[in-house]
């Protein structure tokens, strides 16, 4: 008891009282505890962290009620950092103006973000932190009824994780609204993703510890007006996403996109591309840069006539060929050569299939054929007949989370 007294006295008198008190609670929490955050705007100077805990709830009074404000942060690269935990729930609070990522959660099995907001108040700026809600190398991730605003990379970013649901959330003013990267078994549905540079991204990137993702379903989302200028700091892969991208699927396999409403994304309603589109090289021998088994069906596309982004090579090319009426679904035409069978065809199960969409125009860039020199794509005769993708795939299974409550 004496030791607790000493450390509380010391901390309380020297650090800001709220911050030290909360940090101490995060250190001393025991399984089953709920750490309650009061209403108010609380300035925090350093990363708050929770390590090695199980069955803890951190709960505020509402995402506009309990606000952890990091605008005067002097140390640490995250707002809230959760590592090596099990079954953690974050509820009803907001993290704003973190110097780096707002809430990062790593090596955790069972992490729920519910009615949590991550925000940078100054709007889209490259000096904002990279990620809003950022579970990485986690299992059983649930993000629901959350809001992410103005992250300079992705508002809601799930990386190198497994068993994931992102639903009923809103993301705007970010470079990427929602991004699922090198992750397996993800359901992304019922989200409102608008006003970002790119709405929903599903990427596999090279040179990471967790190599490949697959089995991602994107359905029932509204993906609208993702036409924000790309404000990612240069060098970041997300900086390659053209402004005006609704959904972008890159270098991954087994993705099902269905029953979404994809409206007024000026450059590409839905793009299915290989890693080559980034013009980056990789020496990762275990990396597969191609897409395969992609199924785009039953989506509603609508697009007012408007010019695509001119800040991007592909945007310029689209503008040159199509002016203001840009196709909705754009494929780079780079199938995985390892799937091409002796007859030169790709088995159905490995193809890009497009079926039963409303008002979806199609374009195949055929990267390997039409991009031999910088000017050749401008003279190429692109295929815009979606019949080449006329097939269906087996629906992917629903994601079932294993989270105890």
């Amino acid at each position, binding site marked *: 008891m004496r030791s607790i007294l000493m450390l509380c006295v010391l901390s309380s008198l020297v*650090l800001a009282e709220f911050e030290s008190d909360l940090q101490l609670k995060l250190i001393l929490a025991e399984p089953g505890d709920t750490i309650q955050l009061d209403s108010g705007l609380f300035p925090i100077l350093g990363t708050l962290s929770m390590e090695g805990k199980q069955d803890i709830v951190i709960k505020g009074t509402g995402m506009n009620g309990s606000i952890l404000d990091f605008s005067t942060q002097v140390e640490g690269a995250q707002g809230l950092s959760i590592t090596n935990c099990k079954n953690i729930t974050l509820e009803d609070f907001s993290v704003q103006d973190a110097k780096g990522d707002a809430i990062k959660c790593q090596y955790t099995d069972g992490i729920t973000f519910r009615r949590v907001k991550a925000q940078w108040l100054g709007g889209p700026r490259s000096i904002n932190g990279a990620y809003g809600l950022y579970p990485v190398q986690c299992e059983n991730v649930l993000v629901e009824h959350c809001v992410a605003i103005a992250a300079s990379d992705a508002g809601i970013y799930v990386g190198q994780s497994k068993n994931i649901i992102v639903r009923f959330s809103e993301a705007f003013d970010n470079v990427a609204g929602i991004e699922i990267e090198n992750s397996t078994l993800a359901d992304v549905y019922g989200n409102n993703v608008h006003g970002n540079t790119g709405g929903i991204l599903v990427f596999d990137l090279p040179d990471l510890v967790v190599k490949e993702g697959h089995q991602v379903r994107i359905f029932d989302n509204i993906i609208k007006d993702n036409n924000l200028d790309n404000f990612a700091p240069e060098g970041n892969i997300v900086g390659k996403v053209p402004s005006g991208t609704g959904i972008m699927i890159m270098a991954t396999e087994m993705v099902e996109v269905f029953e979404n409403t994809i409206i007024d994304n000026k450059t590409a309603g839905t793009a299915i591309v290989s890693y080559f589109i980034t013009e980056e090289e990789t020496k990762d021998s275990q990396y597969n840069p191609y897409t395969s088994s992609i199924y785009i069906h039953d989506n509603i596309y609508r697009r007012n006539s408007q010019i695509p982004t001119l800040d991007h090579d592909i945007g310029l090319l689209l503008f040159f060929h199509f002016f203001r009426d840009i196709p909705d679904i754009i494929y780079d035409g780079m199938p995985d050569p390892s799937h091409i069978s002796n007859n030169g065809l790709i088995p159905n199960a490995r193809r890009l299939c497009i079926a039963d969409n409303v008002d979806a125009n199609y374009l195949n860039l055929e990267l390997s054929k039409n991009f031999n020199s910088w000017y050749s794509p401008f003279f190429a005769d692109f295929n815009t007949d979606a019949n080449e993708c006329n097939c269906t795939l087996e629906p992917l299974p629903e994601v079932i989370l294993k989270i105890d409550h």
Partner: protein
Amino acid sequence: MVLAVFFAASPIFPSHPVLEHALPQLSEYGFFLEPIKEQIPTGLVLPYAIASPLFSDYAEKLRFIKVPKNETISHDEDLELDYPVGTFLIKTFYYLSDNRDLDSERRLIETRILKKTTSEWIAIPYVWNEDQTDAVLALAGHRTDVSWIHRDGTPINILYSIPNMNQCKSCHVYKNVQQPIGPKVRNLNIEFSYDEGKKNQLEKWISIGILESFNELSSLPRTVDYENPHDGTLDERARAWLDINCAHCHRKGGPAETSGLHLDLEESDPTKLGIFKPPVAAGRGAGDRKYNIVPGKPEESIMEYRITSTDPGVMMPELSRKLVHDEGVKLIQAWIKEMPEGR
């Protein structure tokens, strides 16, 4: 007043595993003779040094190890040291009021203890009081103003951060388990000035029976001292600096493995070391630069940008510094500059 703050701010906490091991004040462990600010070790407590230290805002460090009586540190074929339960690693951080004058007043700031318990290593942070009579347990960390005259005569004033228990682990974690960082065979394989004269530390530890002997001591690896321009090659010194300053996170099994950037001395894959490696989740930490290392061009390399920054959202390492390690930055700049250009 003090009690009022305590009761107002803190609920009554249940016991916490660390509190079974953490004594309220440093003096209670009996590691040092009184007055303990002199840091003169008692009985089984032995001072040591490591070849290439972590930069922590130019703080000086005193390191001690206490191995329980009649116990021995063993090692395996990979030279991993296995410390017996009950081992303490003790590290005190201090500043001289004038770095140019070794006899100037010394202010002890914090003492960090790593204790090997039956299950794992635990980290226990202590903060020195103003009178320097003792250091007090500070699980939630602490911040304090520190001033000194630097080597070049400039006065420096920083808000020094003493990490909280979780922050201790954020660096000391490997494969989710807390571990010591510095005292590895290759870092300990250097001479130390003992009372009886200079001696190789491993030899000394073996001679007093706290370390299992090696077949051939002379063939053991040794990390170079990056601060000594005559020790090893430029590449070896730069790699030593990266190893101790970055690789506790940036290695396979470390918390920054998600970045794909692995900077431990054992890494040999050029991409994993950062050469022409695009960032993954660096955000504005990339500083509008495209690759972690562009050979021959430090000014285009993200690594150089991040170790030169003091912005919490950009700088690397994330913790342990408010200042730029000028000497370390120059070393890394020279190292990148020396690499042949192109892929």
